[in-house]
């Protein structure tokens, strides 16, 4: 099961990195969305996959008597989902505003902050 997940996570990472290397902002945003999900799956798998055994400690006992599912990765993933979701929302608005203001979604044409022709610094003193 872990092996299968490892391969799936690898494919997701590969896809997201391919998209992140693109020049188009929209593709980069999709890459970021996939990246977030790939990481969530990775954390989930890193906590080991155990099916159908809820992590409940029986009465009169201080620890579970049999191996149960690990609840911690679920808490971590939940935190990461909330964060990556809010970031994606911000990025979508930022991407839209960028297209509105700069009139392009091509990263190579976004040269407002670093214009192509800039004046040389003064020579000498």
């Amino acid at each position: 099961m872990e092996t299968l997940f490892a391969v799936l996570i690898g494919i997701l990472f590969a896809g997201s990195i391919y998209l992140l290397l693109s020049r188009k902002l929209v593709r980069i945003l999709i890459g970021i969305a996939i990246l977030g999900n790939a990481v969530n799956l990775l954390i989930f798998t890193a906590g080991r996959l155990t099916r159908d055994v809820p992590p409940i400690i029986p009465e009169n006992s201080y620890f579970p008597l049999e191996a149960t599912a690990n609840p911690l990765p679920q808490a971590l993933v939940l935190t990461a989902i909330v964060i990556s979701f809010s970031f994606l929302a911000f990025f979508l608005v930022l991407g839209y505003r960028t297209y509105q203001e700069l009139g392009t979604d091509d990263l190579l044409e976004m040269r407002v902050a670093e214009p192509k022709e800039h004046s040389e610094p003064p020579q000498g003193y």
Partner: protein
Amino acid sequence: MAVTQTTVDTAAAMVTEAVPLADWLLVAPVLLTMAGGATAIIFRKKSFVQPWIAIATISLVILSNIGLLNHVLTNGVVTMVMGSWLPPFGIAFTADPLGALLALTASIATLCVAIFAINSIAENERRYGFYPFLLMLLCGVSGSFLTGDVFNLYVWFEVLLISSFGMQILGNEKIQIDGAVKYAVLNLIATTLLLTTTGLLYGLVGTLNMADIAGKIKALDSSGPVLAIAALYFLAFAMKAAAFPVNFWLPASYHTPRLVVAAIFAGLLTKVGVYALLRVMVLLMPEGRDWLASLIGLVAIATMLTGSLGALAQTDIRRLMGYLVIAGIGAMLAGIAVGNEVAISGAIFYAMHSVLIMTALYLLVAFMFQMSGTFSLRDIGGLYIRTPLGAAIGLVLLLAVAGLPPFTGFWAKLLLVAGALEADRGWVAAGVLVSGLLTTIAIGRLWIFAFWRGGNEHTMDGIQALPIAGSSDASEISWSIWLPLLALTALIVLIGVMPEALMSISDNGARTLLDPTEYIRSVFGGIR
């Protein structure tokens, strides 16, 4: 069905005795800034109150951080766990001298920025949440410095990141949106890489508590996975810290936001990356640091040279400052690359120095812009005649950033070079010194052009040029600009003249990092 009453011994899982009052100082910076930020949002419509809420909050944070640093220095490393769950299960906040010192420095820099912003952030931009963002940024930075849990570190990184996004685009200009795209995307990728690596580390050692990780990594049979994780952490934090070759987002974005915003970014954000590197590489994975030492050394030298050569090649003063930030990051990385007590102490001292000096320099740029109305090295000039005091402040700050005595930067670089020579890594020491020389040339040019030269490019030295349009007279500069500039300059001179106290703190911090026994004992007490 009646619930059967079972007696549970909570002492097996929880801290039962009350937390000592002094230990609450550990979470005070985070709680205060969150409360202050929330209060500032409430006063959105009465935005003239906001600066005072922020200044009051940050002053309290400074007081609490002074108390915390004192507590840590007298009683050793302090730990507090959330929800009273015994470590490693509860999220631990652990303050060692490194974390406490940087938290204090960061809050001082933030206070200066908060005061500077009173008159330099426009009313409508204040209404868009400058002060709440500033407080939440400090909240994230303080949390990063004080947390003792790697996943929690990631959460604080996200807190400071989302606040910084809000500040980056304050003003809604074309250039800011362009800068924000590069800044936001690359920083988010770096933070996601941090999360990925934390997930892998959790899969390897099954814990997220830093003290627990430090112990468990030593007990592992094979070092392969640890080395891979160390390399990934290095990439993630180097990206946050803007080290070569993943530094290009910084000069592309730091000149676009409002200058007060750039001041707080340059002061705090990259230093959080360096702090995390120190924490992870030296405390958690010394094995990984030893393995990567030569690579970190090369990256450090490349970063220092990129920074100082880049600074030489700029016409825009704001971009020049961006490259000076990068040069400083290289110096701190050099300390991590050498890795003995003296060099780590130098890196800690440099981080403290860099927080103060980079904040002060961006504030100086804002001051110079107000006096001259331009950022171009070709057009600026005549500031010495207009404001001798400003010229003196400028000279002190610029000499300090280049690492010339008797200011803070000199002592930091002295420790770095001494440590590198002691560890027989002369090439790292040479890198620090060459970069210092190049930086001196760059800042010398800046000071001569901006202050000494009478006017724009074709004016003779010392001759008063015609007043530049859009510039103001020195007497029109408000107290809210003078006060933080003078305070930071005074602090830099004071620490530079009397460095012993801070050096003993940074030595202490380096010792605690290199020998994690005290850190682990603080978290687990008598348990193991």
